[in-house]
């Protein structure tokens, strides 16, 4: 590590620290879980709890080390954080809504409708993030719904009819 720790102030100080804290917490959580795993080792001297302990200790150390790097000039061997554009949280919410609603609804309304909804919300979010002013026009909405259906329906048929993979439908016909 040749970069001097006292160089430019770290613009990512807090985000990087949180990443380190996250890793550290995962390590501790895994250690907590490892306590409950049997150490019954048999002939080997190495039981089912050995790897969990190695992993949890290693992650705890990595987490602490990441925090240290973040607090002493930022992550090493990484481009300056000032170059990062501001994240577009609005678009992210649209995409997240699409994915989570899909997970919640897929068994209830079937693959085709649920995926169309996911596609619609995601494409709207991506359009907004790209600064497309047409995203809100009714024409675009209709077009996105139709495109979503045109992708998910053939995918559904291809996987259920040709490959015999079970995907949930709204009806039992295998077509919707």
């Amino acid at each position, binding site marked *: 590590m*040749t970069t001097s720790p006292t160089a430019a102030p770290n613009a*990512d100080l807090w985000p*990087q620290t949180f*990443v380190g804290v996250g890793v550290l917490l*995962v390590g501790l959580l*895994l250690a907590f*879980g490892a306590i409950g*795993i*049997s150490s*019954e*080792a*048999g*002939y*080997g*001297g190495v039981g*089912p709890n*050995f*790897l*969990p302990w*190695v*992993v949890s200790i290693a*992650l705890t150390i*990595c987490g602490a080390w990441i925090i240290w790097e973040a607090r002493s000039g930022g*992550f*090493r061997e990484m*481009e300056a954080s000032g170059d*990062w*554009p501001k*994240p577009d949280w609005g678009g*992210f919410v649209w*995409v997240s809504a*699409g*994915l*989570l609603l*899909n*997970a919640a609804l*897929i068994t209830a309304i079937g*693959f085709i409708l*649920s*995926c169309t909804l*996911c*596609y619609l919300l*995601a*494409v709207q979010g*991506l359009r*907004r*993030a*790209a*600064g*497309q002013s047409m995203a809100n026009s009714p024409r675009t909405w209709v077009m996105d719904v139709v495109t*979503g259906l045109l*992708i998910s329906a053939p*995918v559904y048929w291809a*996987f259920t009819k040709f*490959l*015999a*993979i*079970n*995907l*949930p439908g709204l009806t039992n016909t295998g077509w919707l």
Partner: protein
Amino acid sequence: MEIFNALMHGFALAITPVNLLWCLVGCALGTAVGVLPGIGPAVAVAMLLPITAKVEVTASMIFFAGIYYGAMYGGSTTSILLNTPGETASMVTAMEGNKMAKSGRAGAALATAAIGSFFAGTIATVIVTLFAPYVAEFAVKLGPPEYFMLMLLAFTTVSAVLGKSTLRGMTALFVGLAAGCVGLDQISGQGRYTGGIPEFLDGIEIVLVAVGLFAVAEVMYAVLYEGRVVDSQNKLSRVHMSARDWKRSIPAWLRGTAIGTPFGCIPAGGTEIPTFLSYATEKKLAKGADRAEFGNQGAIEGVAGPEAANNATVTAALIPLLTLGIPTSNTTAILLGAFQNYGIQPGPQLFTTSAALVWALIASLYIGNVMLLVLNLPMVGLWVKLLKIPKPQLYAGILIFATVGAYGMRQSAFDLFLLYGIGVLGVVMRRFDFPTAPVVVGMILGPLAEAQLRNAMSIGEGSAAVFFQRPMSITLIVIVLAVVILPRIAKAMSDRKLKAAGG
């Protein structure tokens, strides 16, 4: 002769109309994913893993190999025509290829990339054919201590040697190992980290992790950070190489193949090192006017060499995968997952227990290379049209396929929530420059390495001395230490030299 006969049997099996069709579909699909930004071969194979439940093993392995291969051909198209490489393996191609395209030589760059890929891929396949059976024969003699050390070597190279920061690589590796721990312990059958959630008893599906980290995270990353990035596309010119282009390309292909093949054979993973090495070699060997083209109008050697190295590495990576069961990249890790879905554990016995499958797979590599050459040279214009799909529609569409892969594996909506969580993890990793390959390799190889460790310790009757008493095992320990320590000494020495020169 024995090998030749086995290969002929393989051809007989691979050339049935159904298998040829799977190979063609795989190659075409692979080229498409290679061309499309935001989706690579690892995730394409992962999304299609559910088909392993229904499709016969030979057909699906031929299909997956086609995707794996095709993506390497397709990736070069994107990196030459767009300013973003389609996948990491073609990052180096992008440097010179893009410059060639800007000065109106896109066609020549595409041609040298495709022919070079074919050339290197075929030579490397011959090497797989000739050497894999011997490696397998040798590997039968390895015991659990040696296997464990080989896996440790794979872990070390994938996390500490590749990528920029060892700390972040190691963190990613241990996250993968932790994910691999979830579920029933293979030896004692005890549940670990299930948190009372029945879905976790089965462990975390590799499909979920791969699709989450690569596809869902890619979409989230695009919406968060890349909304306003505008890609500029270079014009496609006639795909044709002049006599001078041939004269410059052929030696570059040969050197690229020679550099790439050994890198694929060792569990050191990744195409970054061989492609960069080949690029540096070509730049160093070029003279006069050719040398001046590097970084300016774009030198054809700088495309030909790395592309050949890339395909040679990717093909040769099948040797450690098939003979040792050790994956050295994301995609080979997922191919290993595909074998496991059929209850087949790649390793030295594969060549005896599943000889028909292995040889059909190898034969299909020869066939696939020819198909890809045809798909990529005369038909390149068709693939270029894929680049016209607007980003929002493309990324939103990827989510539909991600759903098929994640849900299709075990029909559980719980997995879709988990997929979202893994996607968020992937975005954080990408934002803070954590590599993802160690997660996937750690997760797949972790449980196998653990089993080998425990078997080895049983052989040693509970003593770790077993690792130091066997010559192969101790050799591997030395190699592991060398790959960790040597690059650091080299770096410290070059830093000191720089300092001395600077003042």
